[in-house]
């Protein structure tokens, strides 16, 4: 049986070896720091599909004493044919020796058959002084690939590329923190080029990773759809005590409204945070710190403030458009009842009414109001919510898509807090008309407390998937 390929990520200390492994293994819990010696032991990160390992990445400590190792190797080698054996003998000889513990850790996977991924920092000048470690790697006889990572802002990639080409079969540039997902796959495919037997497992692995990404997008769309429906239709209710019912003065009502409003807001915030957590978990960003304005109503980031509405809400023209579409669907019912005798007037009237309603609400975000229900079974119920119009849904959706986009485009090597920056133009304009209507109808239905039909969640999920594509294109265009 063919053994799954193993790739040891090696290099000088602090060149981003762990960052490369973190990004490719989608693990944001790997210790990464600008401190030599952060990685003290080798750690294997296998990629498994249904329990079968397709390949393994091994994160290793950096070279500490390459000249001394090379000196030992040269002293114990007779000819070029015994160099790999000399490297193995070095590891055997020095295992347990604290002076060479890092070298033993990084050379062990190589003598066990791993491919070499040699990482350098392309943001600092080329340094010929690293030749000792490159020579040791060449002595192992293992297939090798050099990776020019970029930790800083400068770019010395060209000089590195020219120099490394003399030592390594393949030289690639890969920014562990900023490289887009397509480059991850491309790099993994390049790993497969190191040996013919490795090509198929790496090809299969990239196929699985690609499919996983697509499924994550769909899953994220489902999560956003569920959250939207729940937040749009959420009503906070409370049974009223007899005394309060009896003395239903305006002061009591105000206090009650304030209390229910607070609980309603808190629930909506928690629900939004839950979505954030779910999306991050979906993309395996468990350690991610977020910097985002909370779903606030009363602060400067007020969800219903003019700025927030302009940022994430739908504009009047958009709402009038989708309002017309939704109204026209209702109006078709009139035409059906008249067996077409109204010649489509019903659809037209429905469309105009829908558009007018949406246009009217387009420039404001009304808050829910307190409602006290009739006495039933001796108890009165006070309720707050759901939101009176769909603009709220567009704001929640915009914020959710922004978070999803940032998380899905974030590499696991990133250690800075995720800043959910604001933007100055609107993405909704690029959404196909059919999806706008599906989205608007779903928001309206949820707001009115109507149960979704059997296919509605699926349709909404698909509309949000396309909204994600639209948002992605819009973001990339802005970038």
């Amino acid at each position, binding site marked *: 049986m063919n053994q799954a390929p193993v790739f040891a990520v090696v290099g000088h200390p602090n060149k981003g070896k762990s960052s490369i492994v973190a990004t490719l293994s989608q*693990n944001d819990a790997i210790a990464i720091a600008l401190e030599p010696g952060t990685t003290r032991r080798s750690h294997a990160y296998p990629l*498994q599909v*249904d329990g*079968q390992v397709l390949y393994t990445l091994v994160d290793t400590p950096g070279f500490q004493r390459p000249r001394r190792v090379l*000196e030992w190797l040269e002293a114990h080698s007779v000819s070029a044919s015994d160099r790999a054996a000399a490297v193995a003998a070095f590891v055997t000889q020095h295992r347990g020796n604290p002076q060479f513990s890092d070298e033993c850790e990084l050379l062990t996977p190589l003598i066990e058959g791993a491919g070499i991924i040699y990482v350098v920092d392309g943001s600092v000048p080329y*340094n010929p*002084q690293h030749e000792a470690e490159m020579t040791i790697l060449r002595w192992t006889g293992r297939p090798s690939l050099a990776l020019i990572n970029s930790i800083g802002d400068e770019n010395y990639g060209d000089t590195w590329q020219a120099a490394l080409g003399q030592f390594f079969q393949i030289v690639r540039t890969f920014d562990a923190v900023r490289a887009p997902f397509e480059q991850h796959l491309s790099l993994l495919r390049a790993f497969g080029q190191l040996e013919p037997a490795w090509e198929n497992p790496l090809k299969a692995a990239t196929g699985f*990773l690609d499919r996983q990404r697509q499924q994550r997008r769909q899953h994220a769309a489902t999560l956003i759809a569920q959250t939207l429906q729940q937040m749009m239709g959420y009503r906070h209710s409370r049974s009223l005590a007899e005394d309060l019912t009896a003395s239903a003065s305006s002061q009591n009502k105000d206090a009650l409204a304030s209390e229910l409003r607070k609980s309603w807001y808190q629930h909506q915030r928690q629900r939004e945070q839950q979505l954030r957590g779910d999306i991050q978990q979906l993309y395996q960003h468990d350690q991610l710190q977020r910097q985002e304005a909370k779903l606030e109503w009363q602060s400067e980031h007020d969800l219903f403030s003019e700025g927030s509405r302009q940022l994430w809400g739908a504009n009047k023209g958009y709402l009038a458009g989708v309002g017309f579409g939704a109204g026209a669907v209702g109006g078709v019912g009139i035409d059906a009842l008249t067996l077409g005798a109204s010649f489509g007037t019903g659809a037209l009237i429905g469309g105009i009414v829908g558009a007018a309603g949406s246009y009217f609400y387009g420039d404001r975000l009304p808050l829910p109001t307190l409602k006290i229900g009739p006495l039933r079974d001796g108890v009165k119920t006070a309720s707050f919510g759901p939101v009176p119009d769909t603009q709220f849904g567009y704001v929640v959706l915009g914020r959710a898509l922004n978070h999803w986009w940032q998380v899905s485009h974030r590499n696991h090597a990133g250690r800075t807090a995720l800043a959910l920056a604001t933007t100055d133009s609107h993405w909704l304009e690029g959404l196909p008309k059919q999806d706008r209507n599906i989205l608007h109808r779903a928001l309206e239905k949820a707001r009115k407390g109507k149960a979704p039909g059997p296919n509605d969640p699926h349709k909404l999920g698909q509309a949000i998937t396309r909204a994600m594509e639209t948002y992605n294109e819009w973001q990339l265009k802005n970038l």
Partner: protein
Amino acid sequence: MVKQSAAKPSVTKTPITKQPLRLLMDFDAQIQRDDQQAPDFIHRRDRKCALSGEEHNSPSGPAHWLAWLGRFDNSSDQSSGPGQSTEQHWQRINSGFIALGAVLGIITMTGLLFYDGGQRINVTVIIGFVALQLLFALLTSLQSVVGWQPWRPLLNRVVPAPAPALQPLQPALMARAAQGGGLSFAVAALLTLLAMVVTQDLAFGWSTTLNTAASGYHQLTSALATPWAWLWPAAVPDLALVDATRFFRAGTNTALTPARWGQWWPFISMLWLVWVVLPRLLLRLLASALVRLRARKLLLCHPGLRALRERMATPVLDTGAGRNDANDLPDTRYNTLLQPLPEKAHLLSWAGAGTVNDKQASPSVLSAICLGPALNVGGLASLGQDQQAIAQLTASSDAVTAIVLVRSWEPPTGELLDFLTSARQSWPVGSRVCLLPLEATTRSPSATALQPWLRFAERCSPGFVTVGDIVISTELAQS
């Protein structure tokens, strides 16, 4: 692909064949429970179920999935669960309807056949009542097909609110219960009729205010008796009987033989059996079939089933994200400060720092400090050259003061530590080394780049190594 065998016991204990309603409810309850589970866990679990099914060539429907999930359940009560509970609820409702129907059937028939010896029992009334029963039966079925639930508020008070998955099934379930009650009513009424025919002397006749001839009435009874005319001709009243048994409230028909009044009973019995009992029976069976059909359809449309199939078909991809050493970072605290450069010192260049090969040559301020040209150590220099440099400085003065130029972006390694340790051992007491990190550009090194050097100096022998700064030295010289 590796197929993992299912954990033992692999033989399912729960019966696979389940009533569609129970299956729907059990499935829905499991999906609700899964909402509380981690998505990764349910994906792994369901994928394993699918692989186990493939291995044993067993189907992968919801029933098998539930059985697979329950295979470790040692409870002897296999019938427990939400499906069973729902069925029991409805069994109680059905029983209530049956009991009520039976009581009402007996009372109704007793009322219809009330005979005090004076007035005849009017066949016309019985025919009308039969028509009414038939109409009720059809309306009950129609209401379930349309989904109208006028009894819903009443039901909500009696039974707990149904799960969302069961809500679309409520009309069909209610129709089944109502048809069961109707059937019970019809059968009880028929038995009452037969009992009264046997135990009492009933006198039937027909009467109507309308000016109807006996022949017309005979046509009506013959039409009603068509279904059983071939089976029991005696149960079809002939014209003579119809003609003879008409009675008027205002007059008396004493000429008729008393036995003739009783000859209507076979017709009445068959009328009830064929037009009340049989339709109820058929509609009851239809309602049961409708419940099963709808439950099956709801299960197929269940959003959880779509997600389950997706999970079963999607391979579990583990990218190696399980390892977490995010908190296992080296101690980055330090107490050392940057020091001014010594007034006079020997100059050493570690790994080519500050040499002409480097981007930034040795700073000009050093020319006034240094006692001679820089000695190359580390990097491309051999270990022997390192030792030669140490020996050269040992011979030149009593206590050595040296400045070691290093690249700030190349973190200190074990080799530098070895070099400094060797120098300390070789040089006289009171010797000092000042590390001077240089930046790749003309700027001074950033604080982030200097921190590892300060920590490195702390790890070296106390008082032997410091980290120098040109800016501090220049400022001191100017003051």
